[in-house]
Every structure is written in C-alpha cells, then in structure tokens.
C-alpha cells in the first residue's frame, strides 16, 4: 500500500523511494499475520483495531522494503559494533540473598515468593 506524501521539505526522502519499491505489495501483511504477530508478542489487540494496525504496519514495512535493493552478497551480519570478546570472570557468587529486594516491586508477593496465575491444572 502506498504511503501518503508528507510535508514538502521531506518529500525528497520519499520521492524516489516510492518509485523503487517493486516488492511492496508482495510483502504486505494480511490481518491474520497481524493477529499472529500480536499473539507472538502477547499483546491483546481488539478485533476492531486490527485493520488500522495492519495499515500502519504495512506502511512501515513498505518503507523498509527498500533494503531489498542493497547488494549484501558475501557481507557478514553486524550484530554489535564493539569489537571485543565477551569478558570472562571467575565463577564466584557476586551477589545474592536479596529476596526481599527482588519481590519488593511485585504486583503480588507473599513470603519472598511471587504470586502468579495458575500455570498447571
């Protein structure tokens, strides 16, 4: 789905991008995919909000689609800009015995335990 043109001083950011988006319709997501993403994310989305959300997500995904133009053959993914090995430390207890502090902010707690909804029937 095509995005609306934004105000004039940023139109250049979008102008040629709209012409080079061959995949956008193929990659747009349907309502079921929005439902699935919401389920994966554990966010309850009311049924009546789904179409608007679908439009917003497709707007964002259509814009992201321009990454398909980049030649990334042979390029290793970059996950972190810190070029170092993860530091090792001695396997010693550094902290602990702070149960009261750990549960202090719990919505429900009793005797240093979190009270949670029943998980196993």
């Amino acid at each position: 789905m095509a995005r609306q043109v934004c105000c004039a001083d940023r139109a250049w950011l979008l102008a040629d991008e709209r012409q080079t988006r061959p995949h956008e319709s193929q990659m747009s997501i349907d309502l079921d995919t929005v439902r699935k993403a919401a389920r994966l994310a554990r966010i309850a989305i009311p049924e009546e909000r789904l179409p608007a959300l679908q439009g917003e997500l497709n707007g964002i995904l259509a814009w992201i689609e321009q990454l398909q133009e980049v030649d990334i053959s042979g390029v290793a993914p970059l996950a972190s800009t810190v070029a170092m090995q993860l530091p090792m430390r001695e396997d010693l207890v550094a902290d602990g015995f702070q149960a009261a502090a750990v549960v202090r902010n719990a919505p429900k707690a009793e005797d240093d335990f979190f009270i949670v909804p029943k998980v196993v029937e």
Partner: protein
Amino acid sequence: MTELTKLTLAEALAGLDAKRFSAVELTEAFLAAIATANPHLNAFVLETPDKARAMAAAADARRARSEALPLDGAPLGIKDLFCTEGVRTTACSKILGDFTPPYESTVTAHLWRDGAVMLGKLNMDEFAMGSSNESSAFGPVVNPWRRHASNASLVPGGSSGGSASAVAADLCLAATASDTGGSIRQPAAFVGAVGIKPTYGRCSRYGMVAFASSLDQAGPIAKTVEDAAIMLASMAGHDPKDSTSLNLPLPDWRAATKASVKGLKIGIPKEYRAPGMAAEIDALWAQGVEWLKDAGCTIVEVSLPHTRYALPAYYIVAPAEASSNLARYDGMRYGLRVAGKDLTETYEQTRAAGFGPEVQRRILIGAYVLSAGYYDAYYLRAQQVRRKILGDFEAAFAQVDALLTPTCPNPAFGFGEKSGDPVEMYLNDIFTVTANLAGLPAMSVPAALDGQGLPLGLQVIGRALDEATCFAVGSALERAAGFTARPTRWW
C-alpha cells in the same frame, strides 16, 4: 537567586569552589525554578526536593572540609530511563507502574560518586521510542522555545525531551539522556543545547531501561560543549556489570574542548545533501563549513553511499531488539498486572494496557521480522546493511578526522504535526541514526536560529573512541557560532 540557574555547569562549579554561593542555595534556586516552570513544560515527571537538599548539604559539608568532588553540589536532572535506587523509575511507561528500583544505574552512580545533586526524574518518550516526546505516559513535554510572534506550543524533540526542555529552561545545570537513533542529539538541536552520544560502550548500560541493546548509549545534554565534556567524564567508564562496557582509559575531554582544530580534515558527506532539504539548514551547513575553514580545517567531500538505507535498517534492528527486551514486562515480577482468565490472557491484557500505541507497533514489527520465515529477509539483511553502513564510515574516516552534517532535517515542530504517520516521525532521525548503527560518537552543537526564531544544530561525527575530536570541533563551531540565544520566558 534566579540568576544562579542561568549559570553553565562549569561556571556553577567555579562559583561553588570560590564560595560565592553554596550548593544548598544553588539547589534551592533550581527547585524554585522547577516549581514555577514544570506545570507549563512538564519536563520533570518526578521531583525529588528532599533528596536534592540532603545531597546539596552533604556537598557543602565536603567542600567545607576541602574534600570537594568533581561535580560536588551540581544540581542535575535524570532521564526516567536510568534506575535510581529508591526513586520511582518508569521509562514513562504505564507498564512499569510505580517501579522503584532497589539498585542504582551505573551512570547515575558515577554522578553521585562525583558529588552531583539529583533534582528529579525527567520526562521522555515511552521506552525512548519517539522523536517528539509525545508518547510519554506522563503526557508530552513542551519546548521552552516558540516561533516568533506565536503562542503555539512546540515539541522539544525526543526521546530525551524532558532532558532537553529542562536544560534549555534553566531547570537544571545539565541532564542525563540516552540515544538509540538520535534521542540525545535531535532534542538538543530542537532546544539550542549541546548533546553528545559517545562511542557505543563508553557508558555502562547497567540500570538503563533497555530499548535496543546494540544501539542504546547514554550521554549528556548540557548548555555548552565544555559542560557536556564535564558530564561525560563522570558518566562514562568501565563497568563489569555491562559486558559491552569498554575497559579503556577516558581521555581528558574537557581539555579537548580547548584543543586547536587547525589541520584537521573534516568530511562533508554528499549523501546528506539532497534537493528539497530546508534551505536554511543547507545554508547553516555551508556556514559551518566556512567556520571550520576559518579555524584552519581542511574540508573534504566524502561519500557514505548507504546513508539512505540506515533508517529502514534501524527500523528492523531496533524493533527486533525491543521486542526481545520488552518481553520481560509480563506483569509477574514488577509493574502493572491486569488479570485475565489464565496466564496467557493475563500477559496479553497486561501488555495491551501497559504499552502505548507506538511501543505496541514497534514490538509487533519486531515480533514479525523475527518470526519464522522472515528472519533472513528482514533481520539478517538489516544486519548486513548495517555492516555496509559501518564500512561507509570506515572508508570515510580513512580520509578525514571527523564529519560535519546537520543534526536534523527540520527545526522543532508542533504537537500532532507528525503523529499521524509513523514513518514521517521516523524520518526526523535521518541524519543521526547512522552513528548509532556504526557505534560512533556524535555531537549536536547549537549553531543558529532559523527565520522563525527556532534553534538549529550542526552534528559532528567522530571515529570510534575519538570523542576528543568531536569535543574539539564542537567547541570550534560553538566559538564561531557565538550562539547565545535563549528562549523568551513565557512560563
């Protein structure tokens, strides 16, 4: 006493050292200023006057014993992203409720180690997701600046909008902030302040509410380049509690602000100039080039060919990391819980009620791009593009010592002007987000007012670990620009 609030951090520390005023007097002046201004600006979401007075009294006592610390008695504002022991920390999200951390973030611990005084917690976009501070659960922040002959309220930028507004309105000497895609530099530019995002890893992320862990980096918003250097010197430093924290010595950044820039090569990335960009911003950029030439720099045009792909790559990487990081908000151990008929429904109702619309959008995008079948097409590709962007910078920095660009494509805008379309809001970070993806230090320096009387910033991007050159070039721009404009007080 109101004049005390107009001091720079460096001036205030000198005044305290010379015993021209006490830390308690200075703190009272800021508390009074906050009480007057905050109902209008909404920069602070929590004021901590009792804590501030106690910290100031302790600072005065140390100074009386000639044991003054580097920031002793300096009243600061703290972005609500930094956990503060015993003081509510929410990242301006309903899902954290009244979360009161039992521990202190390393960045704030460093500031208290050095004697600083906490005035309170500063407003921000929810989970630092935004460029206008309109997504805060505590309501938007108002920019102290207004257009000429206009009473219309403007946004302070985001996500560190509270930090920016508080510094510009003289409600604190300086503030902590954080920057994932431009959240220090863009608001600093919108309010005529200085902001620096250091090299990724300079500041510990321990105790900072996580948004996108490979991009998040703390830094200050301050009134001058020198003040920013003083702040960063305290905030930065190695921390074993953050595995990405750099174990490297900290250069003398305050000294760097006095260093000559003569002979430095400054790159002008041609991809940051585009037809249609606001003429005033282009003109200011050209002016910045002239200022640096006059200071003895050599100007070199450079190319960063993948610039246009930075924001789309960011809007895969950042939401993907956010969707993982924000999975922790499940209503079980802290924060909001909305009970459902079973555990899953409790999760879903809690997260629906606790997260605002922009945060929900980004979590959903993240969940989608990481989901089975799409990982390679989106997330992996974005990480590959990220390496191309880093490669662009490495090639440029083989030729030049620093880059000069505008900070933003536009000045501060009005409420609601960009909220209708997520992508248009995202485009505000077009010039800042590249430094996050590549992990580079970058600073925004206020340089001019536009035709409507609003501040505009110039950005200096440095090599990894070379904040010192950012401070030197930023200072040269600051001296040449002579930017002394202040917002007309209407609050």
